[in-house]
């Protein structure tokens, strides 16, 4: 039989355990709410971006019709008469992004095929990190490289009277170099996911490595390669410093890459560096251009990721 004091100490113990449990539970509840609040911040960021871009653009579109904005081909908001045709900025952005896309797809796809189909594992482990250093270099450094290294070379090739100091080609080539590791990594991921048995079947029929790469691996990994191109171009569209430093500040709807252009991002930076008063129409233009930029890159990113996820399902 337990004595009274033992019963007493037992119930004390139970009481203490229960108290500790309650305290632990309360602690969990508090931290669960804190964590939920942290997760909410990323949602609020998106909401904030959309609200600010839309609200500030609304003031702009109250004075300039969206039709004029989206179809006009002359952009001169800082001069009078003011012109608000964003196509010349979009054209500049797309020209540079297209050059960057072609360069990064050519180099990135070639590198991906070399690394996944040809290179022995040891060589791959040395080459891949070196290429990825390219992705970690700040964009302002690429801008410097384009302006002081690539542009003079282009001027020597095409002639100084043909190539303006600030031109779309130099910016596009350097941006292509910057995006190459991203395209290469995404394409390589897609190629690695192609089942070994497909390759072996082709090799068993006597195919060379080149034939296996181009007739088996690339078609099977095509959607991943397409996605890497889309995401790369989207990255190029959103890039700021290279186009600001090397591509110029002349809104110009042209297909000639040797001319000076102005990209959407470069325009946004140019206005925010100037003395444009807050709340003026010129000030609101950067949010309208920003909204268009946001929509363009978001659409491309969604399409790119959708293509990747469809591809993954194929072999799993």
């Amino acid at each position, binding site marked *: 039989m337990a004595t009274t004091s033992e019963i007493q100490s037992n119930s004390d113990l139970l009481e203490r355990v229960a108290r500790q449990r309650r305290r632990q539970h309360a602690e969990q509840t508090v931290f669960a709410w804190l964590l939920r609040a942290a997760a909410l911040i990323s949602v609020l960021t998106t909401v904030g971006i959309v609200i600010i871009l839309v609200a500030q653009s609304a003031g702009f579109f109250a004075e300039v019709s969206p039709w004029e904005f989206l179809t006009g081909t002359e952009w001169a908001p800082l001069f009078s008469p003011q012109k608000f045709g964003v196509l010349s900025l979009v054209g500049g952005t797309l020209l540079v992004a297209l050059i960057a896309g072609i360069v990064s797809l050519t180099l990135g796809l*070639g590198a991906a095929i070399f690394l996944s189909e040809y290179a022995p594992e040891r060589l791959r482990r040395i080459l891949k990190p070196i290429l990825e250093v390219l992705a970690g*270099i700040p964009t302002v450094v690429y801008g410097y490289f384009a302006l002081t290294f690539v542009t003079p070379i282009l001027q020597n090739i095409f002639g100084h009277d043909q190539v303006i100091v600030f031109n779309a080609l130099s910016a596009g080539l350097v941006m292509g170099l910057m995006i190459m590791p991203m395209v290469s990594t995404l394409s390589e991921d897609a190629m690695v996911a192609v089942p070994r048995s497909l390759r072996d079947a082709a090799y068993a029929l006597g195919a060379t490595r080149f034939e296996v790469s181009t007739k088996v691996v690339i078609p099977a990994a095509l959607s991943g390669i397409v996605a890497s191109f889309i995401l790369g171009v989207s990255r190029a569209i959103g890039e700021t410093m290279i186009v600001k430093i090397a591509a110029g500040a002349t809104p110009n709807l042209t297909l000639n890459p040797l001319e000076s252009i102005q990209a959407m991002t470069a325009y946004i930076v140019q206005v925010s*560096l100037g003395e444009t008063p807050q709340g003026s129409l010129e000030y609101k233009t950067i949010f309208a251009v920003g909204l268009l930029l946001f929509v363009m*890159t978001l659409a491309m990113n969604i399409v790119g990721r959708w293509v990747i996820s469809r591809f993954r399902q194929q072999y799993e």
Partner: protein
Amino acid sequence: MNKQDSIISKRQKLHAVRVLRDRIFVVGFGLAVIIGILGLAALLFDVLVDGLPFMNINFLTSYASRKAEHSGILAPLAGTIWIVGMTALFTIPIGVGTAIYLEEFASKNRINRLIELNIANLAGVPSVIYGLLGLALFVQFLFNGSRNVTAGALTMTLLILPIVVIASQEAIKAVPSSYRHAAYAMGANRWQVVKAIVLPQAIPGMMSGIILALSRAIGESAPILIISSLVWVTFIPTSPDSKFTVLPLQIFTWISQPQHSFRGIAAAAIIVLLIVLLSMNGIAIWIRSKYQSRPDQ
């Protein structure tokens, strides 16, 4: 028999062509890698040749000046340290907290799938858009037009948050679930499991992700350019509401000067920036490799 011979020789010719094509394209694909590496080498060479003559101790300890040869990077270096420190202070709790919530607390319902999708989308938003957000939300709304360090750090926080969340999620996923089950079996609750089991195991992985994200913040210029249009800063920030400049911004300012002599100091500042970034990347890789040997599960 002659016909058969000609078929065989045709076959052999075709085979030779195919092998030749294979050889040529090995070179072609390899060339893509080589061009990438040569591009990197040319970039480093360009920067070193232009910048090294300007590298000396005065360059690190003086302020920007109207004359290139007297200019230094004291103010942007201090500004970069302020921005990185404060960004880390904001980003680490929010980013790690989000990752813990998504991996350990959230049920896999539609709302949480939406949060994950949202984070993936934020990672693809151009940095210049974050600059516009920071300008309108932090500079104008929160700080009433003051272009201070806190506004810069908050903007950078939102910019690198998706990277930190995704890296922390990966680190948490790498903790074997048997560890969690053991703790649950002992009667631990969710928060206790996170605090005592998951976090200690995941911290090295998170650290390398956070360092990489912070190095992204150091190299980023577009958002800071939009937030702080002030570009001739000749003082060290003393408090969170000081004005500031950062290394990439100072580099941009010098590149934009019409005088060619400023290009040299821009290149010298680039060398400093690259050294900072390379050592941070090195630390991240070192942490990862040091702690990567996990028990097999």
